[in-house]
């Protein structure tokens, strides 16, 4: 099943790449707001664009982060029952969830493409402040983000399906440990014993 592994490596790689690229937007948000604060309090010249720019950065950042979170199994789920199931039982649940999820995301994708297209059609702009920036770029982020999360969830679906059907495959993610705890602070996390005890949710 080498093609499965190649596909999973490629798909995980795509989400990883997106996550790493957009993670810089956090620094951009800090920068934009610091400029606003400095120009308002020290130069007495509030900017017109900082609030809306930081909001748009926020919106784009968080939307696009969804696929990265999914790739790192970071979407919070309740494991009280699910976690107690045997491996194939969990895989069965995942197949149900990610297949119905894919349908829902496909609907979402279609709606969001229309939403963005309509904004492009009238070259929509924001009317909150005098700055009046165009809104179609930020609205275009929605279908892109939904498309990316749909792609990643297809990879999750395939993983669950193969596990359920007892088809053997090499999961490139198998040896990754997802933890909320800073690895720098906790070198011991790298030995398997502790890792098993670490909650993997966020």
């Amino acid at each position, binding site marked *: 099943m080498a093609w499965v592994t190649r596909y999973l490596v490629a798909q995980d790689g795509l989400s990883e790449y997106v996550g790493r690229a957009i993670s810089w937007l956090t620094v951009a948000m800090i920068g934009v707001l610091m400029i606003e604060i400095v120009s*308002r309090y020290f130069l*007495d*010249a*509030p900017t*017109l664009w900082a*609030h809306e720019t930081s909001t748009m950065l926020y919106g784009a950042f968080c939307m696009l982060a969804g696929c990265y979170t999914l790739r790192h199994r970071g979407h919070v789920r309740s494991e009280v029952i699910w976690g107690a199931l045997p491996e194939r039982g969990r895989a069965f649940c995942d197949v149900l969830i990610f297949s119905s999820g894919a349908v829902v995301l496909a609907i979402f994708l279609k709606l969001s493409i229309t*939403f963005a297209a*309509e*904004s492009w059609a*009238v070259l*929509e*702009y*924001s*009317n*909150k*402040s*005098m*700055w*009046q920036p165009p*809104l179609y770029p930020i609205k275009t982020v929605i279908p892109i983000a939904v498309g990316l999360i749909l792609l990643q969830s297809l990879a999750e679906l395939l993983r669950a399906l193969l596990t359920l059907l007892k088809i053997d495959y090499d999961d490139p993610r198998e040896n990754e440990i997802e933890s909320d705890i800073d690895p720098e602070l906790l070198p011991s996390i790298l030995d398997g014993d502790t890792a098993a005890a670490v909650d993997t949710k966020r």
Partner: protein
Amino acid sequence: DTTRLRFHTFMGTEIDPIIETFQDTVKEKSGGDLRVQVFHGGELVASDQLLEATSKGSIDIAHGVGSYWSGQVDIGNIEAGLPGGWTSLEEARAFFDSEPVDTILTEAYEEAGVVYLGKAYGHDYDLLTKEPVTSLEDLKTRKIRATSQIAKVLGSFDIPTVYLPAGELYIALSTGVIDGAIYGGPIEYEQLKLNETATHYTRLNMLMPGWTDTFIANPEKWNALSDEHKAIMEDAIAQYATDLNEWLAAGNQSVVDKGDVFEFSVLPEEDSKQLTVAAQEVWQEEADRSERNAKLIELLIENAKAQGRL
């Protein structure tokens, strides 16, 4: 069999008595066949999504303001009210009831995928500041919260403006992030408790009513109504609009009558005139957006000339 209409206003629970009358009237006149379910500002969709939601049918009728969706409907800002646009309720009403204006609005909203049902009229829309204002000159050293069209006019006098959502006005004023705001009339300012930090209310005589509302409907849902039901809805909405305006007027008057909430003053006539003249730039900018806008602005100019303001 009952038809239910989802009606979404941008306003909050403060107008509930008006809403209840509206709902009761519709129910009574239709013998219970027509019911209106009302949602307040932000409950189902954000105010700037009202047009979109109406055209898609997430809601059936929306009560909003053109400037919310001016990014999508070219005439939005003009019909919401440009500085210097009109100076009395009668004037505004006559303008919007006139055949050419009505046609333009109907056509613009049809293009945006909704049915234009009519207008409601706002009320006072003036400046509230922490320190007294005697002239435009006074404002040059103060930061004023204003939305885009007004901000542009103030900008031409080198008055610095900031945009903040209404919810942040109180804190921003009390801490000096801004020195004043143009957001509404005495009743709105009192409801936001702004009188605790800023008490100087300056009438600008720039625009009255300071904004107008628009009612729009989802075409499918609207056209499916019987003629009788359409008439009932149109009458009830007209009554709702009248009630709303009277409620605002009475509210503003009651704050004035209290006497100790705000100190009222009026911007010198000369300055008000200057504002109107400066506003022409904004009018022109709106006119440049589309052919339809140019036509509507032309009608607005004609009207202002007929009133002797230009």
